[in-house]
C-alpha cells in the first residue's frame, strides 16, 4: 500500500484520496499547502460583505434570524457562532440530538447557548429509534457504522429547519472531507451540497432505501423514525435560494488556534483524560459512539482517528512525520473496550455478530486472513524512510506551536505526563 510521503494517510481512504504520482504527496496535504497561497484578508472581506448582504435580505423579509448554524457544541460550533456574532449576524442554532452525548459534550453545548445568547432548536432522537437505526446500520453491509443515523441527521435536519423557518443562509464550519481527504479545492467557494451528504455522510444510502430494506423492516424502522432524514425537495430549496457556506473558505482553518481562542473567550472545555483512540483532547468529544465507529473503520481500512489527527498536525508543521507515526502506532489499533461493551449491551448484539458483518467488507489491500486470523498487510511503520519523505518534509514550527509542548497539554494528550497533575494549566473541573 502507498502512504503519503508528507503525512501518514494510506491510499485506501474514503473519499478517495489522490496521491500525486510525481511528489508522493496526498491531495489533503496539497489542500493545506494551497491555504498558504490564498489571500485570506480578501476572503475575509468577502465574508464581511456577504454578511452585510444577508443582514439586509433578512431585514427586508422581516426575519428574526439571519443565519442558521448547525451545532454539536464542540470547538468548531463555538468558533462558528462566535464568528457569526463578530460579523453582527443574528444566528439561530440548530442541534441534532442523537442521544449518544458525552457529559462534557452536553456541558459544552449548554455553555455555547449560555455564552452566545443565541436560541437553539433541536430534534431529540428517541432512544428506541436510536437503537433500531444503530442496530440496523452496524450490521448493514453498505454502512457498518452505529453512528450512521446521526451523521445523516447532522447533514439533513438543519436543511429541514432552514426550509421550515425560511432562513436562506447556513454557516458550516470546515469542509471536513476536503481537510482530511482533499475532496475539493479552495479555488472555488465550497457550498453545502446534497451529493456530499448522500455519497459520503450517508454512504450512498438515501433515506427511502432504508424504508425499503428488508433488514430495516425487521428492525421495525418506520417512516416516523426517519422523519429528520428526508431531504427537502429541490423546489423547496430552490424557492428559498438556500445557500450553505463553509467558514473554512474564509479563514485559514486552524483547530488548535481556534480551540485556544474559544477556551479563552467562551470557556470551551476539552476532554481531560487519555482517550482510547486518539491523542487529541478537543476533537470529537461531544459523543461517545465515535470510538466504536472509528474502531470499525480501523477493522475495515486499517487506519483510524489517530491517523486523521496526526495528519492534521503534520500538515500544519506542528508535528514531525515520525511523531505522527508513533501516535498512529500507539492509538490506531486500540479497541475501545468500555464504549464497545456499552454499545453492544445497548444494541443487544455480541461482538461476534458485529465482526461477522464487518469481516467480508474488509479492504483486501489492508487486511488478509490467514490461519492465524486477520493480518494487517501494511502499516505506516513500514514507510518511515520511504524515498521522498525528506523532500516532502515541511518546515517545523517551534515553541508553543508544537503539538506536544507543555502549553498545549489541555488540547493533546502527550502520552507521558510531563508534570504533576496539580500543576496542569487552567481550571479543569469548572462544572
Amino acid at each position: 500500500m502507498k502512504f503519503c510521503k508528507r503525512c501518514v494517510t494510506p491510499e485506501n481512504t474514503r473519499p478517495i484520496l489522490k496521491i500525486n504520482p510525481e511528489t508522493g504527496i496526498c491531495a489533503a496535504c496539497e489542500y493545506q499547502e494551497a491555504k498558504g497561497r490564498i489571500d485570506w484578508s480578501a476572503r475575509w472581506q468577502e465574508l464581511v460583505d456577504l454578511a452585510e448582504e444577508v443582514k439586509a435580505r433578512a431585514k427586508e423579509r422581516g426575519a428574526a434570524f439571519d443565519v442558521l448554524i448547525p451545532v454539536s457544541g464542540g470547538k468548531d460550533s463555538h468558533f462558528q457562532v462566535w464568528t457569526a456574532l463578530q460579523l453582527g449576524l443574528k444566528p439561530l442554532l440548530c442541534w441534532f440530538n442523537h442521544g449518544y452525548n458525552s457529559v462534557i459534550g452536553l456541558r459544552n453545548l449548554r455553555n455555547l447557548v449560555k455564552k452566545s445568547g443565541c436560541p437553539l432548536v433541536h430534534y431529540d432522537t428517541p432512544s428506541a429509534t436510536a437503537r433500531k437505526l444503530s442496530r440496523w446500520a452496524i450490521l448493514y453491509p453498505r454502512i457498518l457504522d452505529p453512528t450512521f443515523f446521526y451523521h445523516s441527521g447532522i447533514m439533513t435536519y438543519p436543511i429541514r429547519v432552514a426550509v421550515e423557518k425560511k432562513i436562506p443562509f447556513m454557516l458550516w464550519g470546515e469542509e471536513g472531507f476536503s481537510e482530511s481527504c482533499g475532496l475539493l479545492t479552495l479555488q472555488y467557494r465550497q457550498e453545502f451540497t446534497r451529493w456530499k451528504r448522500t455519497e459520503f455522510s450517508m454512504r450512498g444510502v438515501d433515506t427511502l432505501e432504508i424504508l425499503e430494506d428488508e433488514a430495516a423492516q425487521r428492525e421495525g424502522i418506520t417512516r416516523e423514525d426517519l422523519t429528520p432524514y428526508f431531504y427537502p425537495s429541490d423546489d423547496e430549496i430552490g424557492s428559498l435560494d438556500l445557500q450553505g457556506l463553509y467558514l473554512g473558505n474564509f479563514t485559514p482553518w486552524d483547530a488548535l488556534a481556534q480551540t485556544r481562542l474559544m477556551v479563552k473567550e467562551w470557556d470551551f472545555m476539552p476532554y481531560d483524560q487519555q482517550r482510547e483512540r486518539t491523542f487529541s483532547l478537543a476533537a470529537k468529544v461531544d459523543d461517545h459512539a465515535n470510538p466504536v465507529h472509528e474502531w470499525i473503520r480501523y477493522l475495515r481500512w486499517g487506519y483510524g482517528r489517530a491517523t486523521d489527527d496526526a495528519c492534521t498536525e503534520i500538515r500544519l508543521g506542528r508535528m514531525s512525520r515520525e511523531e505522527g507515526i508513533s501516535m498512529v502506532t500507539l492509538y490506531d489499533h486500540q479497541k475501545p473496550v468500555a464504549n464497545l461493551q456499552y454499545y453492544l449491551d445497548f444494541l443487544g448484539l455480541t461482538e461476534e455478530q458485529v465482526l461477522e458483518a464487518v469481516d467480508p467488507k474488509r479492504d483486501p489491500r489492508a487486511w488478509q486472513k490467514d490461519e492465524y486470523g486477520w493480518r494487517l498487510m501494511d502499516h505506516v511503520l513500514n514507510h518511515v524512510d520511504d524515498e521522498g519523505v525528506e523532500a516532502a518534509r515541511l518546515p517545523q514550527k517551534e515553541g508553543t506551536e508544537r503539538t506536544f509542548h507543555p502549553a498545549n497539554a489541555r488540547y493533546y494528550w502527550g502520552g507521558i505526563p510531563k508534570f504533576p497533575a496539580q500543576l496542569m494549566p487552567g481550571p479543569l473541573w469548572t462544572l
Partner: protein
Amino acid sequence: MLAKRIIPVLILENGNVVESHGFRLTNAVHTSAAGALRAMSTDDADEIIVLDVSRDRSQRDAFYVAFDAIGNLARCPITAGGWIDSLAEADRLFSMGADKVTVNTACKDNPREVRRIIRKYGKQAVVASVDIRRGLWMVDRGRRVAGHMADAIEAVKDCGEVLLTDIDHEGTALGYNPWLIEAFAEELPIPIIAFGGVSHWDHMLEGLNAGASAVSAANCLHYSEGSVRSARAWLKGKGAWVR
C-alpha cells in the same frame, strides 16, 4: 439563431471523477460517475462530455464501466472522449450509447482514422478536442507539442465541432481565454465549445460573447447545489440565448 448550449464535463481518471488543474489531476471528487451526474443536475444540461484523461490505458475497463453507468442515467446526448485513436474504439463507444466522440491526439497522429470515423458516423458526431498552451497545439494529455495553433485549425477543419481548451486557463478559476476563442471562431466555420477556467457564471457569458457556440465547465460544477440549473438561470437572466 441557434440557442447556445451549456455542457458539463465529467473528467474521469481510471473510472473516478477527478478535478483537473492545468491538466494536473489533483483530487478525486465523487464516489461514482453516476453520483456526479446526479449532483450536477444534468437534466438541465444540453449535452454531457465525458473525458477519460487517465495517463495510460491500463485501466480503460474502469472507464467503460463508468461510461455505461452514465449512459443509463443521462437524459441528454453524451460525448465520449479520451484514448479514441481508431475507428474500432469509436465503434465501441458509439455502441455503448455515445452520441458523439471527441478526438484529440488522433488529429495529429492518426488523421486517417479520424476521417474514417467521420465517414462512418458523419462529421456531426466527431468533436475535435484542441488543447492550446501559449499559442502551441498540445496533444497527448497536454504532454507533447504537435505544432502551432494554425496547424490545429488546419487539422480539425473537417470535424463537426471543436472543444477548445487553453491549458494555462484550465483549472485556474480565472475564466476562459477569450482571445483564443475569438481566434478560432474567426478561422473556423464550425461550432466552438469553450472549456477550461470557469468559476463564475460570468465567465460563461464572456465565452459566449467571444464567439463560442457552447460553454462547458467541469470543476466548478461540483461545488454548489444544482449547478447546471443555476448557471442556466443566471445566463438567461443576463439575456444570453440559452434554452
